[in-house]
């Protein structure tokens, strides 16, 4: 087990990093900290490119003497994507803060449930009044 981990240390590091990132994304209640995940995502995508070059012929069938340039493109794209997504998410968070005055998504959610309950109560009241009139 340990030996396998040592051989595949790229994979192991990548998995740990992405695990931390994913846990952060799902467990963090404070929105700002959520975007740490994206940094981890960049690491994972970086994994795809160099490993094959170093591991040589075992997994790659059609590599002559050239290396597939596309995965490098994938890494770059992944990084660009995570930057732009982060920017977009931060912009949304800013709006969120303007609307709710807090960065905590849970309190906002509970606020939403309360709003909904009030709306439903109002709707039920309307039906009652309607019944009485008719």
């Amino acid at each position: 087990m340990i030996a396998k981990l040592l051989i595949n240390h790229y994979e192991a590091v990548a998995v740990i990093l992405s695990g931390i990132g994913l846990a952060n994304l799902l467990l963090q209640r404070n929105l700002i900290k959520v975007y740490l995940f994206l940094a981890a995502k960049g690491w994972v995508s970086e994994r795809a490119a160099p490993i094959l070059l170093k591991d040589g012929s075992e997994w790659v069938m059609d590599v002559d003497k050239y290396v597939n340039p596309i995965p490098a493109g994938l890494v770059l794209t992944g990084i660009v994507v995570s930057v732009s997504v982060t920017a977009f998410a931060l912009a949304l968070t800013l709006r969120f803060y303007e609307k709710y005055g807090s960065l905590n998504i849970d309190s906002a959610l509970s606020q939403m449930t309360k709003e909904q309950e009030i709306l439903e109560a109002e709707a039920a009241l309307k039906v009652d009044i309607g019944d009485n009139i008719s």
Partner: protein
Amino acid sequence: MTVKTLAYNIPFISIFLMMIAAIITPVLPKRHRIPEKLSCICLFIVAVLSGYLIYALDTANGDIAFNFPVGHYPAPWGNELRAGLLEAVLAFCYSIAMLLSLTGNFQSTAEDIPERRRSFYCVLMNLLAASLLALTYANDIFTSYVFIEINTIAACSIVAVKNSASTIRAALRYLIMSLVGSGLVLISICLLYDLTGHLLMQPMHTKIIELVKNGKYIFPLTVSLALITAGLAIKSALYPFSFWLPDAHGSSTNASSAVLSGLVLKGHIFLIIKLFLRVFGLDVIEALRMDKVIFILGVTAMIMGSVHALKQLNIKRMIAWSSVAQVGYIFLGLGLNSVEGISAACLHIIVHACVKPMLFTSAGGLSAAADHLKSLHDLLGTFYINKWAGLGFVAGACSMMGIPGFAGFASKISLTMASFDSPLIIWSLAALALSSVLNALYYVPAMIAILTGTDEKIHGVHEKIIIPLSFKISIGMFIALNFYLGLRFVPLLRLIMRGVNIFG
């Protein structure tokens, strides 16, 4: 066998046209709603081109599909598009449904979004269209990933564009869930590249078949398949992962709801179909038992989506939960793991892409007739105030319940027929029956609500609202499409089946 030059270039032209439209939209003058008109014109052109592509492929000798190398790199490297009958039919359907959603909600978009931001809204819509077309045509997993991300950003933005507290919150939830999905997809792409050494789909398939035959790396292969399916399932709102959907689809502006529910979910589902058929192949999917998982999740979604919809009082949230149930139907077809099942699933993609935007557009019209209130209690008798919206809603609801003659019937009967060849027949038929009953349980009361009016509403003693011509045309077209799909679905299903057969 080759197709004519124009047809050969259509996949690329369609995507490119929408991207160019997105790029030039911000510099266009904002008055007279020019940006929106440009989007509509471009979508119309894409629809016409896709129609021509269907014609060219349909009349070619034998069933063919062709590859279009984007960067002109030779086959094992580079990025590719691939077009066959199935892709062409879907592209046609997407562009028509999006065009009608935009024109039908012309007025409500103007009410919800201030003029200076409307051109950016058009940029997002154009990008969304481009990404949907690209997800349909892409033949390598890299292009797919890039357009998944473009799709995510555009989809979250068209939710947030309304700029009310609830939409911002919904957009954030949607974004976070979508990012989890993208993360899983990306990890899986890395694993698959590790295992196969390819990003193009056909070489990946060859390598995967070889690996499975030799019994090598079965576990990593299963993990990567599970990860990528889960990632895309989150994005396509398969039931346990669908809790972000009602907020996002229920609170955004009508045009966004229509496009998100009808089309954006389908882009990701079609990618799953592509992975199953083209990258892994049905035999490998069966060997790795992913078809059973998908089937169970599909059945759960069909039932639970409807159960949640039953609890809703807000009409848009109800329709949004109904989308979750409808996504379940598609996954049920996919879980049958046969050409017939997948063809029926594709037919349901098309049916739902035509019906759900109609329901959202009509619901928007009905709620506009009730001072923009969305609770079913407030919508009593609105049918008589906006008859076009009322007719659209009734037609859509009948279709969702699967009344013969309406579009929903076509896909339900095809799914039923496909189940007969499957060992899961009993489960599949039971789920279809139960889900149809559940659909009726919430659509019938909604129809009764809009049709039950006080005398003054029925006899027209109320404020007249002006129904814009674009709304009438769009609803009229939607209803016509609905009947066309319901009554003449056999040729379409045959076309799809031919497409699925050469899809791999």
